[in-house]
């Protein structure tokens, strides 16, 4: 097996030292649901894994007046059971609930889903819709990266050798704000998104949309923030014409491929429909706040 060494640091600083001191390829291990499979081919390079699950701050989440501070390695099972988080970011929690099976959710994490950087990762569109930011720590200190800039390609994120995703932070939404995430899969469970959409909507007391963020997934190399779709919603009461304009903007921004999950034309259409429906759900939730 190509995993030749296993280390379990108990602090972020210790993890960063271990990442720097490694004389083989090195990867951070959270839930391992992607990494353990990727590391399996006998032809791959010898790999050291740094298990970050003994670092408290990587495994916990807190909600306060600043928003949500999420330990990137917390399991989706634990994350989705947190009613305090679900009350504020229901769309993100729903997305985490869609990753794999019950068994996979017992190990997989939001930070892992983000770092693995699949174009179809379910948590990335709702993270972007919520304005989430990543704190990346390395030997030269910390930097702060917006989620839409964190993923740079298929399976690639912006972290340099020796860096670690230390936390994910979501700002506390304004009053009457909520989110939603929808994906399309041909089955009812256990599948990978053909297209996905995460939307955050803020309404004023008259039901007018005053702020919005729209992000789409599985229809480009990375999940995309679509400002034009948000602009189509802001200043409207989310009438059919506004939703249709947002859908068209999302379809226009998408750059899908054709593969066995769907053709490019199909994905372009479906992502618009998902934006429309996710915006309606987010608005309904915002209304009820």
């Amino acid at each position: 097996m190509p995993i030749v060494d296993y280390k379990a640091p108990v602090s972020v600083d210790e993890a960063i030292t271990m990442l720097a001191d490694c004389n083989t390829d090195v990867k951070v291990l959270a839930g391992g649901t992607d990494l353990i499979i990727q590391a399996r081919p006998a032809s791959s390079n010898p790999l050291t894994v740094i298990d970050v699950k003994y670092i408290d701050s990587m495994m916990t989440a807190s909600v306060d007046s600043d928003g949500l501070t999420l330990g990137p390695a917390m399991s989706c099972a634990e994350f989705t059971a947190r009613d305090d988080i679900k009350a504020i970011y229901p769309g993100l929690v729903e997305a985490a609930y869609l990753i794999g099976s019950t068994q996979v959710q017992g190990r997989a994490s939001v930070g892992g889903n983000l770092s693995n950087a699949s174009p179809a990762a379910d948590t990335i569109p709702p993270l972007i819709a919520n304005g989430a930011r990543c704190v990346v720590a390395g030997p030269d200190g910390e930097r702060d990266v917006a989620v839409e800039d964190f993923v740079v390609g298929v399976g690639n994120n912006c972290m340099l050798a020796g860096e670690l995703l230390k936390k994910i932070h979501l700002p506390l939404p304004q009053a009457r704000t909520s989110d939603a995430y929808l994906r399309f899969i041909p089955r009812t469970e256990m599948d990978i998104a053909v297209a996905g959409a995460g939307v955050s909507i803020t309404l004023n007391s008259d039901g007018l949309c005053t702020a919005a963020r729209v992000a789409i997934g599985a229809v480009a190399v990375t999940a995309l923030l679509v400002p034009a779709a948000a602009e189509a919603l802001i200043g409207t009461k989310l009438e059919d014409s506004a939703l249709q304009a947002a859908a068209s903007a999302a379809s226009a921004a998408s750059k899908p491929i054709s593969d066995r999950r769907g053709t490019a034309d199909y994905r372009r259409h479906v992502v618009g429909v998902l934006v429309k429906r996710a915006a309606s759900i987010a608005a309904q939730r915002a209304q009820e706040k």
Partner: protein
Amino acid sequence: MAKVHVNTTVNGDAVEFLCNPGETLLDILRNDLQLTGTKEGCGSGDCGACSITVDDRLVCSCLVLAVEAEGKKIGTIEGVADKDQLNVIQQKFLEHAALQCGICTPGLIVSVQALLKENPNPTEEQARYYLAGNLCRCTGYDKIIRAVMDAAETMRGAA
């Protein structure tokens, strides 16, 4: 490559073993600890045949490194029955003929036990979603779901 010494608890018993850093917990359970009730299906977390619990959390043992078991509480199919006395879930699988070839059965029973611990009164839909990661190529799932619902009802009655 230096072997790692791991201390853990399996079905309530203290256990220690030596493993390579890349070995999966599934391989150690089956090949070193002779706990062959846990099956290997896909080896990639899609089929659920290797389902076990780690600190009461349902996981696929093919996607857990054996070294990660250090200090943890592992639960496998071998810990479900009380010696010769089958657990209610096992008994209901028999009564409803909820198995044919049997490869998925240990993983399913471990998963059903986790389901009913979390939610003693699931709807059929909730049970089907919870168990979506346990694939069965023989039964078509209907008999499994009937066994699960019957087991849930019996366990609620006994509680």
